[in-house]
């Protein structure tokens, strides 16, 4: 075997070695990365819920209700009208609350402020709260996503 053949043989063995090492790492790492990625939970998409009864809320107050697996806020203003929004602050994901003393929706985490139409009026939130549709059937209040 001359030098040239030896060289080519060495190159061949090298590529097999590095090729298998790459394949081995990929075979180990791929399942790990896939394992770490949480599986998509197929939950029933909630589009409408019964939030409360009309008598549950006094005028000028608000409550947090479950909308699927996310919180929503249902507010009854001083006139007795109902409004509902997603209760997830658009800033950093905290849950907002109704501030009776200021008549606003407020996030305690970074002092984010929204008016009673869900518009961001102060503090760091970059977007308004997503508004939900409120339907009152008799005594019951239903809220649903605006389509």
């Amino acid at each position: 075997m001359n030098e040239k053949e030896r060289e080519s043989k060495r190159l061949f063995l090298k590529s097999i070695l590095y090729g298998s090492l790459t394949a081995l790492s990929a075979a180990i790492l791929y399942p790990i990365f896939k394992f770490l990625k949480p599986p998509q939970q197929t939950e029933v998409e909630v589009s409408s819920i019964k939030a409360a009864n009309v008598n549950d809320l006094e005028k000028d107050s608000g409550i947090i209700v479950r909308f699927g697996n996310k919180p929503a806020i249902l507010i009854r203003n001083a006139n007795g009208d109902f409004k509902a929004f997603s209760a997830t602050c658009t800033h950093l994901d905290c849950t907002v609350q109704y501030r009776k003393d200021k008549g606003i929706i407020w996030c305690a985490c970074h002092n984010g402020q929204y008016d009673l139409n869900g518009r961001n009026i102060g503090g760091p939130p970059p977007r308004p709260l997503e508004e939900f549709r409120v339907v009152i059937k008799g005594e019951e209040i239903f809220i649903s996503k605006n389509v």
Partner: protein
Amino acid sequence: MKNYIQNLYKWIDERVQLQSLVEFMGKKYVPVHRHSIWYYFGGVSLFLFIIQVVTGILLLMYYKGSEDLAFESIHFIMSKVEFGWLIRSIHSWSANLFILAAMIHMFSVFFGKAYRKPREVTWLTGMLMFFMALAFGFSGYLLPWNELAFFATKVGTDIAGDIPIIGKTILEFLRGGEDVTGATLSRFFGFHVAIFPGIFTVLLTIHLLLVQRQGMSEPLFIEDEEKYEKKKMSFFPNFLLRDLLLWLIVLNILAILAVFFPWELGTKADPFAPAPAGIKPEWYFLFMFQTLKYIPANIWFIEGEIFGIVLFGIAGILWTLVPFWDRKSFRGERNRFINYVGIFVVIYIILLTTLGWLT
């Protein structure tokens, strides 16, 4: 008795040449000058880390890492287990003192330019350990599954989710899904007690080996000073004994804090309750938290929070890589600019932390 110990020493020495190690320690010296006191903070950090490992392992005997049981198990530790309140309180206090000691250590190294050649890798491993310490704090904070921790985790992981391009993947990786749930708790528990300690131990080993190998750095400005004559103290036993004395003092401070200011448990997290008023993160995140409050919703065309996160990210990277861009210290020249940067950072952190504390 003395004979037995000598025989045991001889037995080991014959097999692993202990004598050479003792000789090496005897030859290691610590410089003595008017800033020597700062050398002790690395040792204090190490001591507090050891306390974290010991108390952490003890807590593991009773802690249950699930959404339904986490809060209750800590309540059980604090009310039923003998000295449970003490162990948990020490773990929490020591975590905070650990970060404080590591911070002081980091700034003293920064101002002394001890990161300059040949100690770049020591600085890098130190900085990585510092970030890990923050990660330890952040992950450990959620484990009691109380209200404050729940929202702190929501905010913290949401910030990670704002990182351009890879944010969403990181957010899901951290939370174990889209929202902060029991899945997040399981993951944080795994990070806190297995993954982080594993990585930290490797970094710490490298860090300590380098310190032993290269010895302590002397600040440039001291070397320049006129009339400065080099004094030194042997590491073993002189410096080590001083170290141990300080550790004893720190242990006492820790005991006083843990006993007279026991760490509270708060109320159990409820994913469907609004964020409580007066919510704040741990003090070492407070300056960033406060900054986020001041940044307006939109700056030019980007969202304020992304702006803030990118800014802190760049600052953190520059800080970590200082040995590689501070060319003056590399050449052994004085660099005042670094001092100004350091002073600015210290003032910024103190000011914003105080503001965050007061408001």
